[in-house]
């Protein structure tokens, strides 16, 4: 079936079998490999993308269901001149180690800050609880999200 989506601002389409997940379509049909497959059953969060303004596990969403949607993946977070404040702060804090959880983690963090620009530490923990990380203990990730929020609220400069 033909699935047409708007990914990171661009209209894209792919002819995929109906059982294709959005994750598989992004990675294999659209060559957007930034989004990762870690468990394939919605436990680890490495496949998190934003669909029509809400974060979802793209491994649990069939491509057909995303048809007509607007999707943001990790590849759409920066623009050609600047990094997103989350990307800047993750780098600055050394928030990612092996990095495999990173794309999903950043998408969840973006989803949070888009809706709640000034989250408490507990709210950050809650928002990221669907993204498992084995390397970092989450500490620097949380610090980076809080800091990125401050940049986005223009309390501190990047």
């Amino acid at each position, binding site marked *: 079936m033909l699935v047409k989506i708007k990914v990171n601002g661009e209209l894209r389409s792919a002819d995929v079998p109906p*059982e294709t997940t959005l994750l598989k379509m992004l990675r294999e049909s659209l060559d957007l490999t930034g989004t990762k497959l870690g468990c394939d*059953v*919605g436990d680890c969060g490495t496949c998190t993308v934003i669909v029509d303004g809400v*974060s979802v596990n793209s491994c649990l969403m069939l491509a057909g269901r995303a048809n007509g949607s607007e999707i943001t993946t990790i590849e759409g977070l920066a623009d050609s001149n600047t990094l997103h404040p989350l990307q800047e702060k993750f780098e600055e804090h050394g928030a990612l180690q092996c990095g495999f959880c990173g794309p999903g983690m950043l998408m*969840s963090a973006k989803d949070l800050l888009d809706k709640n620009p000034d989250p408490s530490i507990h709210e950050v923990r809650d928002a990221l*609880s669907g993204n498992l990380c084995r390397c970092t203990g989450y500490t620097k990730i949380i610090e980076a999200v809080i800091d990125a929020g401050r940049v986005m609220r223009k309390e501190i400069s990047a």
Partner: protein
Amino acid sequence: MKALDYIVPKSAAAAVELLSDYGETACLLAGGTDLVVDLKHGAGRVETLVDVSQLQECRGIEETDEGLRIGSMVTYGEIMENSICLTKTPEIVAASHTVGAVQTRNLGTIGGNLVTCVPSADSAPALMVLDAEVTIAGTEGNRRIPIEDFFVGPRKTSMQPHELLIDIFIPKKNLGKPSSFYKFGLRKGQALALVNAAAALELINGEITSPRIALGAVAPTPLRAIKAEELLEGQKPNKELITKAAEIAVAECKPIDDFRASLKYRQQLIRTLTQRVITRSLEVANER
């Protein structure tokens, strides 16, 4: 995942018709958080998915003169942000918040959770203590039944194979009823319930009135602790009464013994959680 067909019907009636036509090889797709996992594991004989997640009849949250209607395809994420739910049914919001994580709550629907009918479904106890009813569409039209009658066994509801859950309805008198929800899982984030519990009650002249206690993951289906409710009805609350109600609730449940927790431990959790939801509901009632 094995090859599948994927159909998007434009109405509930069309969905029901498709289900009747295709028989057991068709399956409704709601949020997909359970179904897609099952399909990846090669479960069942499903060949056709009927995606009802966007059906207008199954969407939306509205308050009417009769009560609150929650479309079956409303996601947990939508419930958590809905101002009516936040003020009128806070325990449904609380229960929704404990389901999976943000990403799964944005996909998973309240109706999908009920239809999957696992004993640990988090929304079930919260709905049961509010005397919720569900609307089911079939070839003969719609019918509405109390939510307790909906759950038949593990992964088994009273719906016919070709039927579709349309919405969930909460009577007006129970909106804002003092209530509480508590879930205990093996960790804080993304946990499955070992036991979940909800209570709702009124305090009239210092006496407990229309108490409701519901528990999940304690028997083949979520259940009401009717005998514990009977004990509380008309009584002035005190610690011994609550302790006794909790003991009765333990006796009313038939928890399993598995690798997640032993029978004895589940009973301890039923005891503790029942006490806590009653106590908390009383606190809410007293705060009014």
